[in-house]
């Protein structure tokens, strides 16, 4: 059964997805504008329950790839996401039944809706991360050891690339990242096509709804003048970790990723302590006074203390008043295979995963 995604859900989806982006995934503002314009043109998005997919349906997995900072300058255009899907259909020689996003965190939460609106194809209420992560092998499909190819990549010029085979998810990541970097660190991609069966078995389900409802909770808390950070915690069953003021941000760009850390000086109950949030595009590990206290795959979110809005690794600034919270990760990510793919060691930290939940 298909359900129309109403225009008034765009803002809540963007707000919730930005929080689930855990610092990465890019601010959904530009995607929000694009989706609003498509709605203004009369286009609409139909949301599809993943369980309604037939086993042999083909699902396009779309994503905008690249550095969010680049996306703030090279504004994305939904035409390229649609083109990436078409390129893949041409290559496969068969049509996609529906479209889904690779990640529900950040602006990519809206990528499936943009492509869906452009191509008049339903959007599956699911993603492959339940949050945002920087690399292709960090998806639920990779954890499920599903095929990682082919992949299509479209840039704003006339460049279209199909990676027909890759030796592993890591190789797919390395190859596609190189191509992406080569065309300016931003591109639209259609990842390895999935069957309905695969999406039902390995997708992270109902995350479009989850992000929309989380965003709505925050927006409603603001309107009621309640604490929006508390609204996030209540809605997701999260944990408050730290409250304070940003006193330093260190950024390094290596291998196409933004790495670094931000230092928060505690206020209120946390006065006298410091928290360092280390990131690779997304927040990865939280150290309190030098000791790791929370880490991926638990979702670490840096929120503006007043508005409850997410703060991205690229927009964090000195002086911001922030609250760090942890939200529970999808179950699949905390499985053994999940930890291997997206636990702290996958990000180069010699730490055993320990959930705060």
């Amino acid at each position, binding site marked *: 059964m298909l359900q129309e995604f109403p225009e008034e859900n765009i803002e809540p989806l963007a707000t919730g997805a930005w929080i689930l982006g855990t610092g990465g995934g890019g601010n959904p503002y*530009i995607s929000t*504008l*694009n989706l609003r*314009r498509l709605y203004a043109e009369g286009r609409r998005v139909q949301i599809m329950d993943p369980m309604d997919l037939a086993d042999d349906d083909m699902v396009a997995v779309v994503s905008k790839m690249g*550095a969010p*900072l*680049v996306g*703030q*300058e*090279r*504004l*994305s*255009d*939904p*035409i390229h996401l649609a083109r990436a899907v078409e390129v893949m259909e041409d290559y496969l020689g068969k049509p996609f039944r529906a479209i889904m996003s690779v990640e529900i965190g950040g602006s990519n939460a809206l990528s499936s809706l943009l492509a869906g609106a452009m191509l008049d194809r339903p959007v599956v209420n699911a993603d492959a991360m339940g949050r945002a992560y920087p690399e292709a092998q960090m998806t639920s499909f990779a954890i499920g050891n599903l095929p990682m190819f082919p992949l299509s990549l479209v840039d*704003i*010029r006339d460049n279209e690339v199909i990676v027909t085979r890759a030796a592993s998810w890591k190789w797919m990541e390395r190859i596609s990242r190189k191509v992406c*970097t080569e065309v*300016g*660190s931003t591109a639209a991609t259609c990842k390895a096509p999935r069957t309905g069966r695969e999406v039902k078995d390995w997708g992270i389900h109902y995350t479009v709804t989850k992000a929309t409802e989380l965003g709505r909770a925050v927006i409603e808390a603001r309107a009621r*003048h309640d604490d929006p950070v508390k609204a996030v915690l209540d809605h997701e069953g999260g944990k408050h970790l730290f409250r304070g003021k940003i006193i330093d941000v*260190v*950024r*390094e*760009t*290596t291998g*196409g990723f*933004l790495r670094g850390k931000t230092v928060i000086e505690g206020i209120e109950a946390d006065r006298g302590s410091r928290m360092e949030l280390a990131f690779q595009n997304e927040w990865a590990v939280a150290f309190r006074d030098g000791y790791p206290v929370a880490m991926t795959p638990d979702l670490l979110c840096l929120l*503006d*203390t*007043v508005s409850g809005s997410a*703060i991205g690794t690229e*927009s964090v*600034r*000195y*002086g*911001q*008043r922030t609250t760090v919270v942890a939200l529970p990760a999808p179950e699949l990510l905390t499985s053994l295979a999940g930890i291997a793919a997206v636990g702290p060691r996958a990000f180069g930290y010699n730490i055993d995963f320990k959930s705060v939940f």
Partner: protein
Amino acid sequence: MKRIGIDVGGTNTDAVLIDGDTILSSIKVPTTQDVMSGVKAALAHVSGYVGPIDRPVDAVMIGTTHFTNAVVERARLERVAAIRIALPSGSSLPPMCDWPEDLLAAVDPLIFMVHGGHEYDGSPLVPMIPDEIREAAMKIRDAGITSIAISATFSPLTTECEVSAAEIVRSVIPNARITLSHTLGRIGLLERENVALLNAALQSLGKTTVQAFSDALREASIAAPFFLTQNDGTVALADVAASNPVHSFASGPTNSMRGAAFLTGLSDAMVIDVGGTTSDIGCLVGGFPREANNIVHVGGVRTLFRMPDLLPIALGGGTIIDPETGKIGPRSVGYRILSEARVFGGSTLTTSDVAVAAGLIEMGDRDRVKDLNPSFVEASLARIRDMVADSFDQMKTSAEDVPLVAVGGGAFLIPEQIAGASEVLRVENAGVANALGAAMAQVSGEVDQVFSGVSRDEALTTAEAEAQNAAVASGAGRDSLKTLEVEDIPIAYLPGGARRVRVRVIGDIAFN
């Protein structure tokens, strides 16, 4: 050292003369349509206190909310043209795609999107096509538009496209006043472009405003250096400020808040500054306005530059009330309050008329509002109270009751009790808090450049030292320098770990 601080609001012009921390004189006069005669009247009053045998005035600092008001009221704005150099990227979101309809209508833009721009690493996105720029320039010329904003992808890192496009435009339109986005904003094309477009729309107003101030000073025989206050609480030489009116956004409220801190001795409080046209609510932390984190909306337009965290409301002493519907604002009679408000003999119903009818303040002729239905007056005041209470609540950062300092000429509109406020404070000289804040403003120095082949620490240290030198060159005393802002962005795939570093320092003006 003697300084004159002047704040020209939409309704009143305030002036103070200070010597160090001592207020020697202050005055509030109505802002006149020509700006100048009000400024002259204020200047004549305070300069009368300088004293013939005493030292002359060392500096004059002028703060003005003219530019913000123009955007908020969608008035006095110039028709603009936008040239964005970014194709083939960004075509689904043209310039001004996120502007409110009424503001868009007020600036009635001509919009061009052309090929070019750069990548994050400084390489061209696609080649810029000079003929496309020339063609756009000819259409802009034919439309009679002279105020143009030019933006290009990654122009904060590579200014080349914007600079060469400006040359082409100028060759077609010699009298063009061109705003280049990289001179005003940061990374974030839409937001930077928005700032540049607002700036373009304010070019005429900037020029006429500064010229008027300059004439007024000359007529008052004041030869001291003349500055305009900027949104970060610092000042810029008037001629420089005239081409960058957006830097004066929110300078009035910034000045008021600093003035409120000075007058009350409170360094942590909420402040509401009620002018004739708008009010601003902000939060004082350590004597300075709390800064907005990131995105700031000006008149409904999303922008990205350092501003105090203020919530503006279209409510002031001259705000027009619709006598039929009771709707308050957003239009204001502004400087025409003394001729248009009912109590002053005019025919437009304003918030001041309602305040007089309710006995909140005495001014003008009360008999002229006695026909107002008491229930209409009561309903209007209740609506004002709701507007203030809502905004106050939005800006508060804690659940505890905090003091609210009411300053500005329209402070009488603020009720004695506001939910969430521990008390509503009114102080002597509150009416000229903004002029006082202006008089105390400081100068700044900024460095924004790319460093490579050095460590982050070294880059930051070098940039800070250069920013300090720039501030000293602009007139700051070296001993008073304080670093306000440090920002660095690494740039990938350039040899030597290149990073863009931006440092801003402030200091007191050094007088000899």
